[in-house]
């Protein structure tokens, strides 16, 4: 049995794309842009499934960890 190793898998996931939903570097970004669907409940504000949710991603729109040129301030 072959374990197929995706050469992309060593590239870290893009924080902006995953958490903020936008990365200004687009296709030129050095990090991976992993396309996801958002959990519709989480989009509303709350999903009881938490980290085990299978309805979609629960992106953390968190500030202060942003890489690159995007600068967000939320208070």
């Amino acid at each position, binding site marked *: 049995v072959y374990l197929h190793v995706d050469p992309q898998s060593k590239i870290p996931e893009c924080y902006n794309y995953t958490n903020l939903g936008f990365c200004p570097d687009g296709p030129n970004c050095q990090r991976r842009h992993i396309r996801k669907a958002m959990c519709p409940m989480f989009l509303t504000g709350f*999903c009881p499934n938490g980290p085990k949710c299978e309805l979609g991603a629960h992106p953390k*729109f968190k500030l202060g960890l942003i890489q690159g040129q995007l600068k967000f301030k939320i208070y």
Partner: protein
Amino acid sequence: PLTQLTLNELKDKPWRLPGADLSDYFNYGFDEISWLAYCAKQDKLHADFNPAKVITELLN
């Protein structure tokens, strides 16, 4: 959307467990109380939102 009632019906409240990350469950910086306050404001039918009751329930 999940309302106050639904939240109270959930027997397990895994976001309260030690080590749980609230932001895995709540978006927009909500926690349990602020989420309930938001639901109450969203839904005028839940104008019976009673802060004292919410706090009491949370502490139980």
